[in-house]
């Protein structure tokens, strides 16, 4: 007997899905912003010639790159309150986890981008009297960031999908909402199909915008888009 698809119960719960999507975007967006800032800081520390800076940064990066995100999430949500008495809401735990985890990833992307800039660019900057920070901010980073955009994009997409893990600590993201609707309506196939479709549309739209942005940057003749 063929399965009878019926999307009406799902559509009736559209507000719940919308709220879930909003929460997913909130976690993803916040984590990306903090992740980028922290990632740059970690990258600069790791590139530092002083080992007292470089070594701890390297450790943080490696630990968060090599352990499963779910374990990290549980650790911040369940273990931290027990060990040091820091209570976090599900949202905070999610943001902390995904920020640091993204930072670890972005740190490597930043580092790779910075070292990929030719030595001559540093020379050119220093020759007109710039100090290290000015050369980094005005000359090296703007060029490095341009080369990093594809990796950033990839990570942002990956992160949006990874945030589905927050459902495990009862944060009402899109997947959590879908799960609830599925149980309520006994229509899991339809519900999860719609959820997947929402992920697809949001991420695909995001990719298009980013590609457009990359193309705009290509005006100066140096770009990752051919």
């Amino acid at each position, binding site marked *: 007997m063929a399965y009878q698809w019926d999307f009406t119960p799902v559509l009736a719960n559209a507000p719940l899905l919308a709220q879930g999507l909003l929460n997913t975007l909130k976690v993803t967006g916040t984590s990306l912003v903090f992740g980028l800032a922290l990632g740059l800081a970690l990258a600069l520390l790791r590139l530092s010639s002083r080992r007292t800076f470089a070594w701890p940064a390297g450790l943080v990066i490696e630990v968060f790159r090599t352990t499963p995100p779910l374990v990290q999430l549980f650790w911040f949500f369940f273990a931290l309150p027990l060990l040091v008495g820091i209570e976090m809401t599900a949202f905070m735990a999610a943001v902390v986890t995904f920020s640091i985890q993204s930072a670890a990833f972005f740190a490597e992307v930043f580092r790779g981008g910075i070292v990929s800039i030719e030595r001559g660019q540093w*020379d050119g900057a220093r020759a007109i009297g710039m*100090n290290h920070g000015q050369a980094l901010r005005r000359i090296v980073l703007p060029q490095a960031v341009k080369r990093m955009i594809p990796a950033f994009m990839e990570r942002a997409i990956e992160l949006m999908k990874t945030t589905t893990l927050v459902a495990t600590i009862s944060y009402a993201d899109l997947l959590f909402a879908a799960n609830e609707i599925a149980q309520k309506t006994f229509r899991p196939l339809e519900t999860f199909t719609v959820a997947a479709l929402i992920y697809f549309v949001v991420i695909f739209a995001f990719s298009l915008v980013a590609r457009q942005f990359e193309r705009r940057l290509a005006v100066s003749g140096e770009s990752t888009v051919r």
Partner: protein
Amino acid sequence: MSLLRVTGLTKRFGTNEVLRSIDLEVRQGERIAILGASGSGKSSLLRCLNFMELPTAGVIELDGQPLGRERRPGERIYRESELTQVRQRIGMVFQQFNLFPHMTAVGNVMEGLRTVRRMPKPAARIRAEAELKRVGLGDKADAYPAHLSGGQKQRVAIARALAMDPEMLLFDEPTSALDPELVGEVLGVIRNLADEGRTMLLVTHELGFAYHVATRVIFLADGTIHESGTPDEVLKNPRQERTRAFLASHKQYSL
């Protein structure tokens, strides 16, 4: 009084000693051409003068002021703020131009004025455009480096150095990366700067240009000044055997 005085300048990369206790004095308005085979240390010498490379030993005095301070005998340390000051006073032009590809020509020239000198944007733009005009690129202000020829790029790089009002200019093989037909336009600009009476040091393989423009020629070999004198002395009547061999190898295929 000399603008720049170098005493006992030594540079080592690991165990490789590329400069061996060089003494050099540069007076206001002098134009010194530095010649030498590859590996003779000429680029390193130039790069030590504005501290793109830190000297391993030796003292560099600018306007009579010794730079850095002695930490222990024979070893000097330099503060970054002191070096950024020096680099504003001693401009440098590179073989590979090293233009900033994400900025337009005028953006490149303005950059030092804006970021280092904190000059307001309109004033910096006016100054930068004037410098571009001086090197014959008044109409290329808004072009990105990727859309400029090698000769144009190098002229933008010269304008970028000039914008900082340097007391001295260092040219590190400014025409070596250029197609032969583009060499002339860059040498022409350097020639004009020479006629303005600017102090400059020029590492070059253009012997003819060195002969006509330099007030003094230095021949470097094995990290030491092997021969030094007027262009006529060094290029026409070299006293040292190695200078003669070097010049002969350069003239081998000239017409």
